């Protein structure tokens, strides 16, 4: 699986106004990458997610999955997207029907469909007997798990998470991150749209920064976050770990400021306190 953006623009059209959300987007993502999209509000992250899923077609340029364009009114097969409040899309009479919806739409049936649904239930950590219950009788957190399972069942290739942790409690956030890591380790490409720098520093192997509808940075998170000026120029803030190391360095400590996560910063700081020569 490979997704390619070639000089893609996207313009929102309405009767009274049209606004350019993305300009000249160029990048390509290979199978198994964990890519984070970050940027200030209104920088075009969600629009980019729509293009990635094939839900929107670029106004100018091309977006290709394995060399093919998305068809109108269709999506890229095998690419799932988890929106911010995925539980708002529930409609099924049973949890089974809900989760089977996208797998069925992708042509699955019979035993394969059943296996996929129960697998998805297991992955999101819900008991298998939930399959016969109504999704509307579940708690908020359970509903969200069902909604995510319903996306999982139809996305063999890649998953897009559009600000998945907004409005979720801390254990829910951790659960979502672990889910993304697990799916990634199984070979799925993961796209993670976020505002949270810690999350990005911890999870992503590649980060694409959007600013004002354009790509401001595309590369290693370490490389981005070790450059304070670049981070500020992109309208972002530093992750806590990187910020701590930079501040302690500015105070005159001879410490290597290579880590960006809190854990990394703790390791660096401990080594420096012990007097190991790492700098």
């Amino acid at each position: 699986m490979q997704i390619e953006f070639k000089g893609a623009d996207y313009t929102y059209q309405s009767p009274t106004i049209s606004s350019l959300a993305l300009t000249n987007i160029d990048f390509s993502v290979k199978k198994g990458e964990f890519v984070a999209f970050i940027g200030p509000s209104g920088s075009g992250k969600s629009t980019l997610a729509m293009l990635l899923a094939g839900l929107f077609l670029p106004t100018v340029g091309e977006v290709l999955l394995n060399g093919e364009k998305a068809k109108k009114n269709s999506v890229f097969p095998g690419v799932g997207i988890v929106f911010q409040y995925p539980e708002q899309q529930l409609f099924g009479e049973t949890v089974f029907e809900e989760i089977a919806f996208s797998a069925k739409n992708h042509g699955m049936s019979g035993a394969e469909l059943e296996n996929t649904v129960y697998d998805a239930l297991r992955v999101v950590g819900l008991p298998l007997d939930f399959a016969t219950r109504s999704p509307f009788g579940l708690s908020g957190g359970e509903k969200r798990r069902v909604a995510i399972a319903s996306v999982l069942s139809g996305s063999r290739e890649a998953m897009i998470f559009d600000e998945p942790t907004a409005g979720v409690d801390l254990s829910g956030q951790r659960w979502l991150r672990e889910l993304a890591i697990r799916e990634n380790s199984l070979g799925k490409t993961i796209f993670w749209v976020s505002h949270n720098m810690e999350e990005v520093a911890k999870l992503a192997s590649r980060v694409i920064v959007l600013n004002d509808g354009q790509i401001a940075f595309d590369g290693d998170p370490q490389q981005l976050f070790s450059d304070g000026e670049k981070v500020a120029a992109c309208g972002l803030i530093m992750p806590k770990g990187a910020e701590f190391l930079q501040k302690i360095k500015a105070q005159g400590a001879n410490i290597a400021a290579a880590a960006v996560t809190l854990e990394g910063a703790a390791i660096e700081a401990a080594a420096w306190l012990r007097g190991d020569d790492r700098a």
Partner: protein
Amino acid sequence: MLKENFLLGQYFPGNSPAHRLDARSKLIISLLYMAALFTANDWWGYLVVTLIFVAVLAFSRVPISLLWKGLRIIVIFVVITVILNSLMIPGERVLWQWKALTVTYEGLMQGFKLGLRLLLLVAFASLLTLVTKPLDLTDGLERLLSPLEKIKVPTHEIAMIMSIALRFIPTILDEMERIMLAQRARGAVFGGKKLKEKLSQIVPLMVPLFVSSFRRADDLAQAMEARCYFGGAGRTHWRRSKWQNRDTVALILFVVLWLGLLAWRLL
């Protein structure tokens, strides 16, 4: 995408003479125009109401392209009206015949008249909401209905319900678009041709839409209660619209129009 094709309830900001009229006069004018539409029964009458519409459109400075976008859906109904009328209405001058189907000149003309009537009706109503802020429209309606308070008609509540309904049309369309995207992302295909396909597409769209609309209604009710809303009794208005000379003039013009058409029809 949906909103572009649905104008009723949307406001087009502006400061044209039509925008500046009092909502009350605009409401009465709309009623008078509708009465005029149903009074006109020959081509001269239809020519007059069409010209009046063009004049009002020019006064409102609403771009015709914007209005056209909203009317495209109605055109389907107009076409159906023309076809059905031309097939159903018997007449003397037969234009076309095939087995049991007959199109007569009289039927075709009747179809065109009804179609034009329908088109102008919706166009004028859309224009009313395009040039009047929803809040002004409600206030106007409430004040027009206020004499009915004496016979215990809950006029404020009626007006409030109407304004909330109008206010939420674009919101619900947005919501529908969002749900469509989410279901398309799960592989649903909208816009199938067969009836069976269409019906199976409706469930994943309508169930979440109903759920979210009820949730929204609950939220709104709570937000209103939290701000001590308790209905009509003793409510005052921050901004009171003023009836001005131009309102009287506009109103007289439309009364004359309607009476003229009535006289033309009866004499």
